[in-house]
């Protein structure tokens, strides 16, 4: 008996995209402040808005043309059977890789800062198991979990940023001199957050599950704008509180900043709540990525349902996350603009640029025919 297709509604899509993007705040903030950008980290955040907006536009336009298909389907449609399969397989690999990276970064923070003696693979396992369980339960469940978890996430995030305002002892002087070194450093620093927008590729797989596929562009732009605003505010706050140099030196500046909050004699050291919020974001991100990957894989392999694949995929991602990067240094090297830039460019060209180009050409050709 064919199961009715699961649906998520607009608001849930908005929340999912927002949370996927906002975890960038927590993990990738240091790259903004490093690479010589220093106090202009927030400029880097602003700059990253434009290329990602363009990317979203391309993705949504492509996807709106085929509202009942997932990426695997329309890739084969547009690019021919075998090329389409190869590109879809590549897309699936990208999803799995991102899920592994996301889990790895989160587990790295925990094992470095909190549970130093717990083996990394154990913490990784808990994060990925959660994602796998949610992916197994289906996208509707993930949507509802997003609904459930969003208020906590948002309040903690916003709250942490607001609470640090009393620490603005020197006013906003840490932000000066603005753009003293020109636009170069922020531009370089904006490469990584732009690249992190590869997460939005989940839209390609999720179109079929949406209530109103026509509104995809509007929803994703709104969600992305909100999270970019949060990113800008967060970079501002981090630079002001920690100072630009320290912000560049710390591995996870947002948490270090929250550590310096002391509300009163009894409410101190509250960064654990920010980690909580980050865990929620990671959970939603990993589940959606795993869901999309297994869905695509099941379609590629011609299976009726994706659920049996969750087990093997989970193991694959777990080993990937554990062994791809030996330690934190390799992780940081991977996310450096020199390495990350070209990789992300390749990904976008293949999975977004190519289908969009073909789609547009086809559209113009069929227009001529009419």
């Amino acid at each position: 008996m064919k199961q009715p297709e699961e649906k998520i509604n607009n608001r849930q899509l908005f929340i999912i995209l927002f949370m996927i993007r906002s975890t960038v705040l927590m993990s990738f903030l240091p790259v903004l402040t490093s690479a010589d950008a220093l106090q202009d980290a927030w400029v880097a955040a602003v700059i990253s808005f434009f290329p990602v907006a363009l990317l979203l536009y391309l993705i949504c336009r492509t996807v709106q043309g085929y509202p009942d298909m997932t990426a695997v389907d329309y890739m084969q449609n547009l690019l021919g059977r075998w090329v389409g399969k190869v590109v879809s397989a590549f897309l699936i690999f990208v999803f799995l890789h991102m899920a592994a990276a996301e889990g790895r970064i989160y587990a790295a923070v925990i094992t470095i800062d909190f549970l130093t003696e717990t083996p990394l693979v154990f913490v990784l396992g808990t994060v990925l198991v959660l994602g796998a369980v949610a992916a197994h339960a289906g996208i509707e469940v993930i949507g509802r979990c997003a609904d459930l978890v969003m208020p906590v996430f948002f309040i903690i995030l916003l709250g942490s940023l607001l609470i640090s305002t009393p620490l603005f002892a020197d006013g906003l002087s840490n932000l000066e001199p603005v753009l003293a070194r020109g636009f170069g450093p922020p531009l370089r620093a904006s490469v990584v957050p732009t690249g992190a927008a590869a997460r939005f590729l989940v839209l390609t797989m999720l179109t079929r599950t949406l209530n109103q596929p026509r509104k995809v562009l509007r929803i994703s732009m709104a969600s992305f704008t909100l999270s970019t605003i949060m990113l800008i505010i967060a970079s501002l706050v981090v630079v002001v509180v920690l100072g630009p140099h320290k912000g560049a030196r710390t591995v996870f500046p947002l948490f270090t900043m929250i550590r310096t909050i002391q509300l009163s004699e009894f409410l101190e050291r509250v960064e654990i709540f920010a980690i909580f919020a980050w865990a929620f974001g990671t959970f939603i991100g990993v589940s959606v990525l795993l869901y999309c990957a297994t869905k695509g894989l099941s379609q590629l392999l011609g299976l009726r349902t994706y659920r049996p694949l969750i087990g093997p995929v989970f193991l694959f991602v777990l080993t990937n996350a554990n062994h791809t990067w030996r330690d934190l240094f390799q992780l940081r090297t991977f996310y450096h603009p020199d390495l990350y830039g070209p990789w992300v460019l390749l990904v976008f060209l293949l999975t977004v640029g190519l289908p969009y180009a073909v789609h547009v050409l086809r559209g113009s050709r069929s227009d001529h025919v009419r």
Partner: protein
Amino acid sequence: MGFLQKILRGFAKGRRDPWHEKYDIEKRQEKLQQMKLSKKLQANIDLIEKITGSSSDLIIRKFRIGATVDAAIVCLDGMIKEAVIDEMLHSLIVESIRDRWLRKLDISAANVLNDLLPVHDVVEADNLADLFDHISIGDTCVLIDGQSTALLCDSKGKTSRAISEPATEQTLRGPRDSFVEDLRTNTSLIRHRIRVPHLWFEEIQIGRLTRTKVEMVYIKGLANEGLIKEVRDRLNRIDTGSILESGFIEEFIEDQPLSIFPTVMETERPDKVCACLVEGRVAILTQGTPYALLVPTELVMMLQSPDDYYEKFPLAAFTRIMRIGAFLTAMMVPGLYVAVVTFHPELMPTNLLIRIAAAREGVPFPVLVEVLILDGLFELLREAGVRLPMAIGQALSIVGALIIGDAAIRAGIVAPSVVIVIALTAIASFVTPIFSLGIAVRLVRFIFTIAGAVLGIFGIQFVLLLLAVHLCSLRSFGVPYLTPVAPFVLRDMKDNILRLWHWKLPTRPKFLGQRDVQREDPSYSVRPDPSQRSREGG
């Protein structure tokens, strides 16, 4: 082996009964349905005696209608109201003579039914299954010689207890009647409150041995047709030997039998049932238990108490929010305590931490074991309190809690801070109005405690998210379990988390998919008419 059985059978001749040996329990109901009554009175009586084994409470009274035709009544002593039967017999024996003389009445089942039976409810039956179904509930069967139809007359005596206060769901304000074990009394309690004719009761009999009467209650045209059909189908699909309580039915019809969270709510308050019916839900009443089932159920519904609707808005909203907080507290506080004290001492204020460490000097167990011991002790006390008779029970729980706790501290088995934590948890867990949810909370609390001891706050967060995924994937008869929190339905928030004034609740819940979404006129406003004011102003 077979030879031995034959010999044994030979020795047990006295009580040998071929019919009961031949058929298993499962087959007998079918067989009974196939056995039709014959036209001969004595044959019917013999059949009945054979099947019932001439049970001591079976009354078979033979008489003659109109002094000519043989007839008999069959009923069960103890279940009947004798006055009705006497009245009936009077008419059949005495009046029938006069009627026969006056109107030349022909004694047939139809005539007897129409002219001679002064009983308010009569059903005809022609097979033994129906006959026994009715007799077993207190009806009287009239068998007439020469007719293959039996007349089943309602002579039920009310044997249930009086309507009293609900034992488990007490409120400060509001009606104090609760359901009883008798089905008909329960339905009357509902009828009193909802007086429209669209309130329909559908009866089903479930259970091969118990033949329990189960009634589906709904407001036709308000409740979703699909929902009604689904409930009916599920009830009809139940194939089991006995249904002794609505809890049995609950387990058969729930969506996720493996989940510890209840997706069907049980209640013994008629006002709750009526409120749910009015929203478009379906209720299931069971003979023999005061607990009615309500479907579909959401988690938020289980955290509500009727008090919320009878008190004014700010108090109700505040109490509701506090109840949600208590729900979360009861689940997570021991786990959080273990996690923070052993993994994240930097979260606690310095003075408190040092005092806790000081108090723990000399305690032999790790914090986790302490918490588990006290938690287990408390559960024991609670369970014991339920079983003991009232007078001792109360004293024991108070004494137990205070003295044992204190003695444990002095003996150095536990630290005082753990006692406070467990006491807080215990008090919070009593705030949950629905018992089945309380059980789920207890189990989940245990898991949280262990998780807190394994990975600290990350363990708690792991279990929390697992719980969230599980709850989000639950559905109760098609409605997601966490409506209206997830999926978020803003319109329903007014009633579920807060509880705005009654005049501000114009819509019914969204997911019940019923036709009449508006409860009342949305432009309704509570202020007095301006014309009224001017009149008073003179």
